[in-house]
């Protein structure tokens, strides 16, 4: 290479010029993509509707402030009791509900985790596709709702109140994407349902896409996506920068011996 450069400096200059122009074009393309993505985010943020439920006024305000940082134009409404939360959600039909666990049923009553659990059970029954983030100081009691969480088709994220602001906002974003996240200790053993195994087999052994998987399994494509989020939660696969979620799922599924 050095020899060629020495022999023909003009060719070398041409090559570096070409490389520079390629890099500039790539950078411009990247910037354009970023601009489009930001525009899309702003557009989607403007349309977002969020309901925040917490009995502590200061906590409620802090959470709203934090969400406004990420979703500046979103319509954020609040509720401090289980009853008002149900009313707000029925009225606004939000994209995501951020719910505390210890809540009073009505104003003036004592906050109890059982009330929050009951509210979540009702929400999952009445709004099967609602995205929910449970933000609680004692999220472990949610293990009681495990069967309902598994059956829920919307996003369901358990976010401990000790999470940092950045982590909490990431979890809200995951919920909006319809993902499921439960703490590791809540997943004792690897509980895999037969339909999840079928999705893994069809995707990674037959190479089918979601639409084809849905046709083969005689279910809606949305249900296939729901199976993906469930199996990814069971395998502990969550969005990670620079990593492909489906490939990560395949790797973990092979590690666990779920597919050959």
């Amino acid at each position, binding site marked *: 290479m050095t020899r060629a450069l020495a022999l023909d400096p003009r060719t070398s200059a041409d090559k570096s010029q070409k490389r520079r122009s390629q890099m500039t074009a790539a950078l411009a393309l990247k910037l354009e993509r970023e601009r489009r993505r930001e525009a899309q985010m702003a557009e989607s943020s403007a349309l977002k509707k969020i309901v925040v439920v917490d009995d*502590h006024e*200061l*906590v409620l305000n*802090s*959470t709203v*402030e*934090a969400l406004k*940082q990420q979703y500046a134009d979103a319509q954020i409404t609040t509720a401090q009791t289980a009853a008002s939360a149900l009313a707000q959600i029925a009225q606004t039909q939000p994209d995501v509900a951020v719910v505390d666990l*210890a809540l009073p049923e009505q104003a003036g009553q004592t*906050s109890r*985790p059982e009330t929050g659990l009951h509210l979540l059970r009702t929400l999952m029954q009445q709004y099967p596709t609602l995205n929910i983030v449970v933000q609680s*100081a*004692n999220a*472990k*009691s949610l*293990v*009681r709702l495990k069967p309902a969480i598994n059956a829920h088709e919307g996003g369901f994220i358990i976010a401990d*109140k*000790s999470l*940092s*602001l950045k982590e909490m906002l990431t979890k809200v974003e995951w919920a909006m994407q319809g993902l499921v996240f439960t703490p590791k*200790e*809540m997943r*004792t*053993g690897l*509980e895999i349902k037969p339909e999840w195994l079928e999705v893994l087999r069809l995707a990674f052994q037959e190479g089918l896409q979601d639409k084809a998987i849905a046709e083969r399994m005689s279910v809606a494509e949305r249900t296939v996506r729901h199976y993906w989020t469930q199996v990814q939660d069971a395998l502990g696969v969550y969005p990670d920068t620079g990593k492909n979620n489906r490939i990560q799922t395949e790797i973990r599924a092979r590690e666990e011996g779920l597919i050959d």
Partner: protein
Amino acid sequence: MALFQLEKRPTATELSSHYFALASLSSFVISVLLISVLVGLAVFHWQTQQALRWWFEQQHQWLCREAEQVRNGPLQETFVMRRQLEMNPNETLGKPLSQHPTWMAQVTQLNGQLVRLSDELSPPYLETSLPLAIQAWAQEAELPGMPGMLGMPGVPGLMLCLPNCWHPEPPARVSLILSMLTYLMRLSMETADLPTAMSLALSQQAGWGGRGVGVLEVRLDYATTAIAAAVGRSLNLQPLIRTFQVLAPGRCIQRQRQQRLIWQFRWRLLPDSSAP
């Protein structure tokens, strides 16, 4: 004459029958007294057990309420403090910006301590699952810096063998089982010879009348049979065994198999529980 006839000396047969009547009367009285005393003791014992169980239940509920107070009060305050620091790093109560990371670290530490305190008062999963509660207890016990617990240097890892599903248990009993494990492990770690391997297994066995029996077995292996025997003798676990017997209610059996010491806790499961 008539008086003389009345004062006639009783015959030997009459005396004998009187004697036997008196003897049987006194033995009857003694038996009644003995039975009364035994019944009284049994009633007293039963009432004492009931009172102790009531007291333990009250204590358990009180601790749960305290834990809820911590979770609803100071923990929420630290959440707000943390968010304020995260969202307004330039306005940290008039303190220089350079102190911001220190404040954040302190708030995070305070938050962690409050979580630990609330979990100490009312351990996680008490009301939901015994296996999960034991798993959470083991994770906490194996943390370094817990004096006399499993995170000490030289202590082998605790092997857990827990079922995925378990029957509903009264939260007070789950709390008692965790307390038993804590004391048992703490006492074992205080001996001169540490175990070489430790395991804990939870299982269910069939019991009388179709009711299942919960069995929790703690096994500690030592280097030699002699060391295991010495440790077994040195541990004064009789109060712990009696406490479990009364409060669970159940049984705790200690035995040795070669270099292994075994403690088996057994209790009857709730009647409405179904097999896992």
